[in-house]
């Protein structure tokens, strides 16, 4: 293909589908500026505007709040702080750390929500927020899990008594016996700091209208029913009395969900009898969520031939000031501690701690990228110490085709350890990936120190293995309209992954009706179709199956109608490209539906459920494994410490590809998101403050950080549980980047960096150009 030749000499062939698939259903509106996001929607009449009052301190007692100057400003309509709470039922949770939606006694992170103030216009609201006088008494903050978990650490939530937010473990075999038979023990500690999601559309914005007996909300979120259920619970109404509209979402990555700001806006709307619009500024968006910082302490026991015999891992997880995702993330940290390795004797433990930081939340590949970084670096270190090439070491120790999670023996885990069997050969897919960057997976032969060139190259390999997707339910409705178009109702927000396109493809393929006759509805919970949300690479499998089911039912109805109107039995009829056929009789679906009595509507409803414990994480809700492989070539400038990615290859197995360019975009985009955390991104706290919550100081990947030679390999190797054998692939690439680059750094300069981001400063310290960092 001509266009591929130009892409840095692409060595990966595109499938036929790349040339034949229809464009994504959302893109014409997105490239012409017609797609509507929250801030583009027409406003409800009589709308009011909200601004927030936030703590400037990471940890402080709130002595008093005086709103008198703010309320005196003309145009100010109302305010909600702890002093106005009594009218409301505001219990989010029985747990003290999640109970209140505005600060009561203390502010627990820099940016914590003290209150919200509403005015006739936005600028008055923002001015009024500045006029709220809050008296704080500053307390010492805690910024790391290790500090928070220290025996003498003061509890951030006094009622709780300590800072431990969750603990989980997973293990089997006899770890002590395993280490006793080991010829070599390798240990390492690997750290991932907090990073921001930083979608380009700010987080948290909402239009809230509780002026009738229905709470109506417009907000960018990945999960409409999460918003419904939270509002129903907090305000004591039925879920059917909450209606959530989700327009196009300008980037999610785990950041967009229900927020305290949303709930306060709903409460204020009720109080004022007018809709409330809250639009977050970018600086506020940074205060919404972050990825969990983690420290992975691993110890691996090996035989002299490189066989792993035991692994002992402790992960410290920093959940920030709240705990709304802690159980899940902690479970993922535990179950990912062994990576993709077959470990006969395992002991893994994760502990989450409260700190005075932005609340951590789901982040693409939730809870898994960080331990994956640890285990892939540790195993590479072990291979190097044994003098075994990384690719051979992996081939020897990675989980094999047909294997499940636990090798054998007694199990000792908080989550389930049963799982699907792996359906792919890692040695094969590793070979494909390293070859895509022109590498054989062997360690580089380094020139001696004296002859060291300024620019030195290294190559790294990393794999990832995650459960297929999360548990949950999905429902959809397919209705054949009298115009011959099929409308699909659902509630899977399109957050950018091509969700609406996938629905269109699945409906078209199931029905035999062209995509041009498929209309995909927008997310609006008034249709009552439950869905667990666009996350955890579940939408193709879950919603895809629900749409497939709905369309199978609709197809049955169409075939029955054809038999009734045009003779024969329904099984004798077929639909292809929108045309019904039987023994040479041809009727278009459009003509068929027009011939039906007006009272008759053809429809089908569909449902899919993947059950199991959310803690399992490779456990009993794991109906397929989702592998990823990455190979990278980097160039290090010994003088400046800069790292340049020269070549990158990522591989995933899609089972059956629904939309090639969307799948490719997910794999490439995941890797590029991972590249940011690998090279640049880190949330900095110091002296009681959050230092870099602004777009100037928080560096995101740019086009020039991504190599032109970027190879994306999408296999259709083994069928998955999704429609037509599809699997999720969205989170297969992100977790491979940091360890692949870290291993490449070792390959280039013979030094193992143990924390991301791999900044020039760390490279120069590793090379001895700069002195070691002070602890």
């Amino acid at each position, binding site marked *: 293909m001509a266009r591929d030749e130009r892409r840095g000499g692409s060595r990966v062939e595109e499938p036929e589908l790349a040339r034949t698939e229809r464009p994504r259903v959302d893109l014409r509106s997105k490239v012409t500026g*017609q797609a509507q996001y929250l801030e583009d929607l027409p406003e409800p009449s009589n709308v009011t505007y909200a601004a927030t009052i936030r703590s400037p301190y990471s940890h402080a007692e709130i002595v008093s709040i005086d709103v008198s100057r703010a309320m005196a400003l003309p145009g100010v309509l109302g305010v909600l702080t702890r002093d106005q709470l009594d009218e409301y039922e505001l219990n989010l949770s029985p747990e003290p750390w999640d109970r209140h939606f505005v600060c009561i006694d203390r502010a627990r992170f820099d940016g914590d929500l003290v209150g919200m103030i509403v005015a006739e*216009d936005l600028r008055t609201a923002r001015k009024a927020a500045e006029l709220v006088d809050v008296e704080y008494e500053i307390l010492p903050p805690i910024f790391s899990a290790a500090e928070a978990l220290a025996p003498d650490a003061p509890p951030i939530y006094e009622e709780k008594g300590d800072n431990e937010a969750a603990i989980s473990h997973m293990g089997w075999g006899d770890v002590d016996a395993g280490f006793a038979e080991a010829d070599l023990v390798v240990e390492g500690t690997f750290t991932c700091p907090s990073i921001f999601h930083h979608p*380009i559309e700010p987080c948290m914005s909402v239009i809230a209208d509780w002026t009738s007996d229905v709470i109506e909300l417009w907000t960018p979120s990945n999960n409409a029913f999460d918003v419904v259920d939270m509002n129903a619970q907090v305000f004591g109404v039925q879920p059917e009395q909450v209606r959530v509209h989700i327009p196009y979402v300008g980037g999610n990555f785990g950041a967009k969900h229900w927020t305290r700001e949303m709930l306060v806006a709903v409460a204020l709307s009720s109080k004022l009898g007018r809709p409330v619009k809250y639009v977050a500024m970018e600086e506020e968006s940074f205060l919404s969520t972050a990825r969990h910082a983690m420290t992975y302490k691993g110890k691996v026991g090996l035989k002299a031939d490189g066989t792993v015999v035991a692994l002992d891992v402790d992960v410290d997880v920093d959940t920030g000031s709240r705990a709304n995702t802690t159980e899940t993330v902690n479970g993922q940290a535990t179950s990912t501690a062994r990576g993709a390795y077959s470990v006969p004797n395992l002991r893994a433990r994760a502990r989450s701690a409260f700190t005075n930081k932005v609340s951590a939340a789901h982040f693409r590949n939730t809870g898994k990228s960080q331990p994956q970084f640890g285990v892939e670096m540790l195993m590479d270190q072990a291979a190097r110490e044994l003098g075994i090439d990384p690719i051979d070491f992996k081939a020897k120790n990675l989980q094999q085709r047909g294997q499940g999670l636990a090798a054998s023996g007694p199990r000792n885990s908080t989550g389930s350890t049963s799982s699907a069997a792996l359906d792919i050969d890692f040695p094969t897919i590793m070979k494909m990936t390293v070859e895509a960057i022109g590498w054989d997976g062997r360690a580089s032969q380094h020139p001696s120190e004296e002859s060291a060139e300024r620019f030195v190259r290294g190559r790294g390999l990393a794999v990832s293995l995650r459960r297929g997707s999360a548990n949950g339910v999905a429902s959809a409705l397919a209705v054949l309209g009298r115009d011959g178009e099929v409308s699909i109702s659902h509630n899977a927000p399109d957050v950018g992954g091509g969700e609406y396109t996938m629905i269109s493809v699945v409906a078209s393929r199931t029905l035999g009706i062209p995509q041009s006759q498929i209309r995909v509805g927008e997310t609006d919970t008034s249709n009552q179709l439950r869905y667990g949300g666009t996350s955890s690479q579940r939408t193709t499998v879950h919603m895809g199956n629900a749409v497939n089911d709905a369309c199978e039912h609709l197809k049955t109805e169409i075939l029955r109608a054809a038999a009734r109107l045009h003779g024969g039995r329904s099984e004798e009829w077929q639909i292809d490209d929108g045309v019904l056929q039987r023994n040479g009789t041809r009727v278009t679906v459009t003509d068929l539906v027009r011939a039906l009595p007006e009272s008759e509507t053809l429809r089908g409803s569909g449902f899919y459920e993947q059950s199991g414990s959310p803690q399992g994480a490779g456990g009993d809700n794991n109906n397929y494994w989702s592998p990823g492989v990455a190979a990278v070539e980097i160039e290090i400038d010994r003088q400046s410490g800069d790292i340049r990615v020269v070549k990158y290859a990522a591989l995933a197995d899609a089972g059956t590809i629904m939309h090639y*360019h969307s799948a490719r975009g997910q794999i490439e985009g995941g890797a590029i998101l991972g590249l940011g955390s690998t090279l640049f991104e880190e949330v900095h706290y110091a002296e009681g403050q959050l230092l870099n919550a602004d777009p*100037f100081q928080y560096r995101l990947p740019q*086009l020039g950080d*991504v190599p032109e030679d970027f190879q994306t390999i999408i296999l259709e190797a083994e069928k998955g549980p999704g429609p037509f054998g599809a699997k999720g692939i969205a989170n297969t690439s992100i977790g491979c980047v940091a360890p692949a680059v870290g291993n490449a750094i070792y390959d280039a300069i013979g030094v193992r960096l143990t924390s991301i981001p791999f900044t020039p400063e760390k490279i120069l310290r590793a090379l001895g150009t700069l002195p070691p960092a002070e602890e």
Partner: protein
Amino acid sequence: MIGSELRLQTVQTAPVSLMVNGQPWSGDVPVEEVLLDLIRSRIGLTGTKRGCESEVCGACEVLVDGAPVSSCNFLAFEANGREHTTIEGVADGDQLHPVQEAFIRNVAAQCGYCTSGQIMSAVALLRENTSPTYEEIAQWMVGNICRCGCYPAIARSIMEAGEELRAKGGANGQG
């Protein structure tokens, strides 16, 4: 309408007359108002997006007298007398610009929030150079952040659109 966001009384306004996508607009705007708000809230063209409001992300990019500008950091009164192109003015009626077509073909947009800015920037680049190298594209697009990570597809789209424009005999005529 969205204009009510701007209701706070200001000390001073300035009369502004400008062209947007070939259409004239005139009115009084507060002197501190930025072009982004003028375009979105007063003129009602919401394809131009509010992102970082710090001239970093590029989501709000428009062309002012043909040059790419972050409208979040460009004062509205300075737009007086100038010609503006927004994302809504890039296509020629139903006929999309080659950059827009290439973005659709390659899925160079995922969430789409930065896309308007990416396309404005790419259109401006191809007016100067219809056969940019990857490095030239990277340098030009440094102010357009895509958090979804569509960069490989964006670079490919710009190259393909450039090729199409070369075949048509130059980048002039559209947008």
